[in-house]
């Protein structure tokens, strides 16, 4: 009897919880239905009464903004933008700092607890855009013409809808350690500016480095086995790493041709990954004087100045390939949650943070403005390093490729070492990567 009773108790408890959960689920669905109705109405309702009234009083209203953490300077810059905005509008901003934004934001979307406005990484945008969690933005209202068009495109879906506004951008450029270079008898101008010529130059440089500093002590150049860094090369000449169905096509003829060219460079032995050198990333290798050339984003600039002040360097454009210049750009946007409580205030914040507030943010955070007028007004070109990075924006490929890019990139990173070590041909390695990525995509669908 006691046994029965306790079993019953447990069962009732579990069932009631399940029932409760289910009922709540149903509630949730209703709620959702209601909110989606609301949100679908918002564009119309918001346009009518608003008209031209930017100085609305938002006193007493609170906006939550989801961000990810940054270094000291970034936090300070954001705090400044926030306090300026608060003075201007009378609203209060509450920050939610994500430490693992993908996991946390997904939980927040599922639970319906996401902040009103949040950062959206360019590469994650296509996925979030499929989830009905982002509020559609009106291009005229948000003034999207002011932004670099390739960055704006990164936040536009295939059917032309805009769900986020780029708040900043970073680009890759070539960093050269001038002391090391000159120590083996070269000048910066001796470094050729095309990848094709680097195939012969890098081994020469490596030989001189080996002679002077001992074999393997200093590497001519570092690179990353990451599509986020190499996509602009792999997709040259009309090649694409995914097809219309977003299935992986790393082993397609066009991609392989470009990849094989990169392998030619790698096989010179003068191009290594930070991991091969035993370090975490290019910045550490370069900062500790263990490589002469690296390709990095502008975030490394402040880092070098702060942590490795002895290193002297110059920054140049990315090398051209097949006669064309290109680079990668990484943009982050602000998006509004589709169930946001303060939609108007959220729009106001985005307009401010990506408008008047942008220069404060960009200057502090060490990234580039996502609009040309701000770049001009800030006189970014006064700093030669930032000038170079800025010049890369227009021909850069934004790091984004459909919803399957993280799967394809994982598969790529998984198999590229076997191609580099010579265990597999690049064709075999990429065929395996394709198979694995596509299995994963099919399992998910």
């Amino acid at each position, binding site marked *: *009897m006691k046994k029965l009773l306790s079993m019953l108790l447990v069962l009732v*408890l579990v069932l009631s919880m399940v029932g409760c959960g289910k009922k709540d689920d149903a509630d949730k669905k209703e709620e959702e239905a209601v909110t989606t109705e609301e949100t679908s109405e918002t564009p119309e309702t918001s346009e009518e009464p608003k008209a031209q009234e930017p100085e609305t009083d938002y006193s007493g209203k609170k906006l939550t903004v989801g961000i990810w953490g940054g270094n000291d300077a970034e936090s300070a810059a954001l705090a400044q933008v926030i306090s300026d905005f608060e003075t201007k509008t009378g609203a209060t901003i509450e920050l939610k700092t994500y430490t693992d934004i993908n996991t946390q934001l997904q939980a927040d979307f599922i639970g319906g607890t996401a902040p009103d406005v949040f950062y959206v990484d360019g590469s994650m945008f296509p996925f979030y855009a499929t989830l009905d969690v982002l509020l559609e933005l009106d291009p005229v209202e948000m003034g999207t013409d002011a932004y670099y068009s390739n960055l704006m495109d990164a936040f536009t879906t295939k059917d032309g809808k805009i769900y986020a506004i780029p708040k900043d951008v970073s680009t890759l450029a070539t960093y050269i350690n001038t002391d090391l270079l000159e120590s083996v008898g070269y000048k910066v101008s001796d470094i050729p500016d095309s990848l094709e010529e680097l195939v012969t130059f890098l081994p020469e440089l490596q030989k001189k480095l080996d002679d002077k500093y001992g074999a393997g002590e200093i590497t001519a150049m570092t690179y990353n086995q990451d599509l986020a860094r190499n996509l602009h090369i792999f997709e040259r000449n009309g090649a694409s790493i995914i097809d219309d169905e977003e299935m992986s096509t790393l082993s397609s003829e066009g991609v392989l041709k470009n990849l094989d060219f990169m392998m030619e460079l790698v096989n010179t032995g003068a191009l290594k990954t930070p991991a091969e050198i035993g370090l975490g990333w290019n910045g550490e290798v370069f900062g500790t004087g263990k490589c002469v050339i690296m390709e990095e984003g502008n975030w490394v600039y402040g880092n070098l100045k702060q942590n490795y002040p002895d290193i002297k360097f110059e920054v140049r454009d990315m090398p051209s390939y097949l006669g064309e210049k290109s680079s990668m750009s990484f943009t982050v946007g602000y998006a509004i949650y589709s169930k946001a409580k303060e939609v108007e205030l959220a729009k106001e914040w985005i307009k401010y943070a990506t408008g008047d507030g942008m220069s404060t943010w960009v200057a502090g955070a060490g990234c580039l403005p996502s609009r040309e007028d701000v770049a001009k007004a800030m006189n970014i070109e006064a700093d030669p390093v930032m000038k170079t990075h800025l010049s890369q924006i227009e021909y850069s490929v934004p790091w984004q490729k459909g919803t399957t890019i993280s*799967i394809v990139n994982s598969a790529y990173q998984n198999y590229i070492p076997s191609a580099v070590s010579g265990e597999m041909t690049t064709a075999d390695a990429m065929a395996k990567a394709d198979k694995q990525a596509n299995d994963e995509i099919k399992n998910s669908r």
Partner: protein
Amino acid sequence: MHSNEIAVSRQKYTKRERREHRQGYLFLTPAIIVTSIFIGLSVLFVIYLSFHKVNLFNRTYTLVGLDNYIRALTDETTRVAFKNTLTFSVIVVPIQTFLALVMASVLNSKIKGKMIFRTVYFLPTLTSSSALTLIFMFMFSVTGPINGMLIHMGFYNKGINFLQNPNFSLKVIMAMNIWSTIPFYMTLYLATLQDLPDSMYEAAEIDGANAAKKFFYITIPYLKPMTAYVLLTSIIGTLQMFDQAYIFSNGSGGPANSTLTVSLMIYRYAFGTQNAMGFAATLAIILAVVILLLSLLSQKITKSERLY
């Protein structure tokens, strides 16, 4: 019907037994309430998900029956992940357990400074895992001390990239896992050994038993129940291994899938960009069944069900 049952149970058990039953349930109630709400429900939900194609964002659940299971069981990558995970477990669990046993019995013997040794040996458990991983990755890097030592000893003359070589990467993680978890189990064994009567060792000594004999005929049998627990947690811990594989491979499971574990796969499906929570749940259930079977096997071996 209800009163009938009461009558039956009245007949079956004495008053004293019934009181013991009541006490048993009472002692267990808090644990059962907490675990059934916060784990039990989630587990039921995961089982439910595993039979569905799920989009949690708009709460659509499409029943797909055993489809996820069939896909999972025929998937090549899943097989690789299970192979890696089982290899990892089969090698790590026995070594871990045995070394922890030996060290605990050594530190329980009459040696000087055991307090200091015990404290020092516990430190890896306290050291942050990011610090541990960094140090390990440095030690095994191309220019690191392990390569330096092996080159110096003349095994080869060019550093091996242990972290990026599919033949070594999983082994490096194994070494790290063994090294960092031994202290945990050792401490447990030591705590249990505090209740082992000295008289048993003394009697054995009079009979002329040496240290090895005492270890195998007294210490090991006495620690059997705790060994059952150590094996259980070690099996679960190794088969669910995630963090180290994630950090080592940057989440890719590479190179060439050599560090791909089942948990890593589950995470990738669950939080990937394809809404594959249903498939992730299926992999989790399959992994759970494998763990359960191995745990039961280990319990059979240690035969801990005794002494009631």
